[in-house]
């Protein structure tokens, strides 16, 4: 229920009490089960017919009235933030119904058919949000958050260099740092974690992911510009008693995960997660004497606790400890020996990270949709690293606090959330002989108003003011509007501003793995951008099944941006504040359909037009694919014993910064070719076991010669940052999952 305050809750509001006795209506009550099995009416729960936008919300006394659906007998879905959705069958002659939602309910998402769709676009969220469920996550069994978007058309994942193995996401064609990555609605993977952070979230720990495009709610800060990625971990009160997962691939990468949930009593529950991964074999498929994927050792433990008195108080807290070692570079490099050119080129990154969080919420009796919530998060991150002869060490301490109050004005159609927040960031960085440090202290206030006309429209208006100790006071206005044009047509639009402080070295460590001379020309200013979006979702009836078609357009306009200029010279990288224009246009169309029984097909296409002023000219941003296509096929046999998944990604060409001032043998073309990536996986389900076998990059497509001057890593032409395609080729993997519920 804590989630209540921090997610975009809104209710359909209270319906006027119409007591129609005719067959066209259904009325009912939604209860929460109290500690002594007493029924507590649940106000503000959403009730809607599955597959439609016809819905309402329960009133103060938990009651609702709902129009019958003209298309016959659909399941009724009941959802309430903090509870799992429940789906209920209602017979045609039934006029009233009692529904009980339970916190222990372990239903997976909306269960409509035999096979719940793995990913879907929310029908009720005013912000365009794509849900990736655990079922979808299992379709790409490897390994962590960076691999969780293979079947998602909106998010791109690419390597940032050819040596560190770091992967970056892109949303709307813009780097992942412009989107806000959150863990259960708390900002995370920012600052120093920006570069390697996606590898800190093991796939099997996750329950679901929500990807929202465009400007976000003001509740979680000013940082989100292109969108939000929110990860929900498994919860202590409704997860497997025991879950074990093992994974191995043909490069001898081994991973193990486990989690166990224990209900201590009616109110307390706890959960322990563990993750180990190890890749200790040096593999060089492309013969450039550099290891394709760095050697990695990671240990990660997470313990979380939940308290729920089933009345007014909900609380959670947890701790996470992570340790990671990465070793890359030339095959013959020996880490334990002296770091001199004779030993070869090596890369080493050691990370220690500690996180703690708490969330507490108090729900007021007798007033629906009214609660107060307090969220705290502390992160310590330490990185010790070297890239050839470059040394880079960094330390970050981050505190995030957010106190929110939510209530309604007049009636529950007018919802108001207001709060105060405080963010502290303390950075210390050491690059070779230079030391940098930065302390940020940012108190903020915010307010968000939601106006809802049940079944028709939602308007979200948010404004926040932040008082930055370095950059002064600034305002963040944001707007979202959703309108149901018809029962099966949803229109959304959004506009808003976002800001962030650049961490020049930490988020661009790939430039350390080059011989380029780094020149920081300006004092970094805050990055600042506007984002506007349009989105139309239409559901069609095609041969008795639903075809979901989604079209969207997002525009991002930078007011200021930190430009990383690799165009000026192949020998240098210049870093300066934007002087001129920088923008991104992203157009996407996506369709989902169950082609034949139990065969789900998704097809999507996105066109990216991302340009910025680099070296005084407007140029396409380097290494951003001009377009991306995606086709996914997912088939389950009757009884779900076998599951087959197939994904094909079509990546358009991208611009490569000029290397014309290099000798001919160290030059690259100025444009990359378009290429296709195929992934496939087979899963066999047993009562308690699942085993899977899969392959990534099945056509073994690789960027040839990803490293410039790999034969002379200490010379002046060496550059491992010019990456437009896959560095490693085909990967075959196998694994198992074992669960006791």
């Amino acid at each position, binding site marked *: 229920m804590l989630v209540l305050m921090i997610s975009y809750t809104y209710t359909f509001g209270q319906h006027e009490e119409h007591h129609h006795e005719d067959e066209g209506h259904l009325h009912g009550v939604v*209860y929460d*089960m109290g500690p002594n099995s007493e*029924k507590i009416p649940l106000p503000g729960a959403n009730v809607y017919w599955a597959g439609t936008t016809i819905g309402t919300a329960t009133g103060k006394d938990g009651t609702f009235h709902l129009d019958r659906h003209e298309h016959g007998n659909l399941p009724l879905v009941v959802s309430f933030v903090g509870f799992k959705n*429940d*789906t*209920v*069958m209602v*017979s045609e002659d039934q006029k009233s*119904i*009692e*529904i*009980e939602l*339970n916190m*222990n*309910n*372990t*239903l*997976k998402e909306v*269960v409509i058919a*035999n096979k719940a769709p793995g990913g879907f676009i929310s029908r009720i969220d005013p912000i365009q949000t794509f849900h990736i469920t655990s079922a979808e996550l299992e379709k790409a069994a490897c390994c962590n958050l960076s691999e969780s978007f293979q079947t998602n058309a909106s998010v791109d994942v690419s390597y940032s260099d050819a040596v560190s193995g770091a992967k970056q996401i892109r949303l709307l064609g813009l780097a992942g740092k412009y989107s806000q990555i959150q863990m259960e609605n708390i900002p995370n993977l920012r600052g120093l974690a920006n570069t390697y952070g996606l590898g800190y979230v093991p796939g099997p720990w996750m329950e679901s992911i929500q990807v929202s495009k465009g400007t976000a709610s003001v509740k979680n800060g000013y940082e989100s510009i292109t969108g939000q990625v929110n990860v929900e971990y498994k919860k202590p009160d409704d997860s497997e008693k025991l879950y074990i997962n093992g994974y191995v691939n043909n490069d001898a990468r081994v991973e193990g995960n486990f989690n166990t949930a224990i209900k201590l009593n009616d109110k307390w529950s706890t959960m322990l997660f563990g993750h180990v991964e190890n890749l200790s074999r040096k593999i060089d498929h492309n013969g450039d004497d550099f290891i394709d994927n760095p050697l990695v050792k990671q240990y990660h433990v997470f313990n979380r606790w939940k308290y729920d008195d089933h009345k007014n108080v909900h609380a959670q807290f947890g701790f996470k400890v992570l340790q990671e070692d990465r070793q890359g570079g030339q095959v013959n490099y020996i880490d334990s020996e002296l770091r001199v050119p004779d030993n070869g080129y090596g890369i080493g990154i050691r990370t220690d990270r500690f996180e703690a969080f708490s969330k507490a919420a108090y729900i007021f009796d007798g007033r629906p949709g009214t609660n107060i919530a307090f969220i705290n998060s502390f992160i310590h991150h330490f990185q010790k690293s070297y890239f050839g002869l470059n040394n880079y060490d960094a330390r970050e301490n981050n505190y995030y606090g957010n106190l929110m109050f939510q209530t309604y004005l007049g009636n529950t159609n007018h919802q108001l959330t207001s709060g105060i927040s405080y963010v502290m960031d303390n950075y210390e960085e050491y690059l070779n002989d230079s030391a940098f440090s930065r302390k940020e202290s940012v108190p903020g206030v915010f307010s968000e108003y939601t106006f809802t006309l049940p079944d028709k429209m939602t308007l979200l208006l948010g404004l926040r003011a932040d008082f930055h100790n370095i950059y002064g006071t600034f305002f963040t206005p944001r707007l979202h509007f959703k309108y149901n044009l018809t029962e099966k047509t949803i229109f959304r639009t959004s506009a808003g501003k976002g800001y962030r402080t650049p961490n020049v070295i930490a988020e661009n460590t790939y430039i350390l793995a080059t011989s380029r001379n780094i020149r920081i020309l300006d004092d970094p200013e805050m990055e600042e951008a506007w984002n506007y979006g349009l989105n139309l979702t239409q559901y069609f009836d095609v041969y008795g099944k639903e075809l979901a078609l989604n079209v969207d357009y997002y525009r991002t306009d930078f007011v200021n941006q930190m430009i990383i200029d690799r165009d000026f010279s192949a020998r240098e990288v210049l870093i300066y504040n934007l002087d001129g224009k920088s923008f991104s246009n992203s157009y996407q169309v996506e369709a989902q359909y169950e082609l034949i029984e139990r065969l789900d097909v998704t097809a999507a296409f996105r066109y990216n037009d991302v340009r910025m002023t680099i070296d005084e000219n407007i140029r396409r941003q380097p290494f951003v694919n001009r377009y991306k296509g995606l086709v996914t096929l997912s*088939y389950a*046999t*009757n*009884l*779900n*014993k*076998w599951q*087959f998944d197939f994904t094909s990604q079509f990546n358009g060409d991208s611009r490569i910064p000029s290397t014309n001032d290099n000798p001919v043998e160290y030059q690259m073309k100025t444009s990359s070719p378009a290429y296709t990536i195929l992934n*496939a996986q*087979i899963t066999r389900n*047993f*009562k308690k076991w699942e085993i899977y*076998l899969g*392959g990534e990059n*099945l*056509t*073994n497509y690789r960027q040839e010669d990803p490293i410039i001057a790999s034969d002379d890593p200490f010379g002046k032409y060496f550059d491992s940052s010019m990456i437009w395609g896959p560095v490693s*080729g*085909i990967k*075959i993997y196998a694994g198992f999952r074992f669960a006791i519920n």
Partner: protein
Amino acid sequence: MKHYKMILILAVFISSSVFSQEKERKTAEITIMTSAVCGMCKDRIEHDMAFEKGVKDVNLDLKTKEVSIVYQTKKTDPDKLREAITEIGYDADDLEADAKAYEKLPACCKKDAPPH
């Protein structure tokens, strides 16, 4: 070498989908009344019964609480199927749910939970 792996994968893909559609054997269908009360009960019963010997298809209708099962007559019989349902924690026609299994069900799946 790379291509062999690819072909191997495809071969496994194709052959396994072929094998999954085994030869038609003698089947019968039975409808059993259960004590399922929610979508989660439906999931549990359908998932667990799918892995009972001889079961070819399972479908639980929450409106009527009836589960219809298609099974191979050579491998199982109605009594065994009813017993299997009781072992998941639900009543099956006249048979009472296995007490231990019933205890382990989440609160919302128990019989005395209000109809929902």
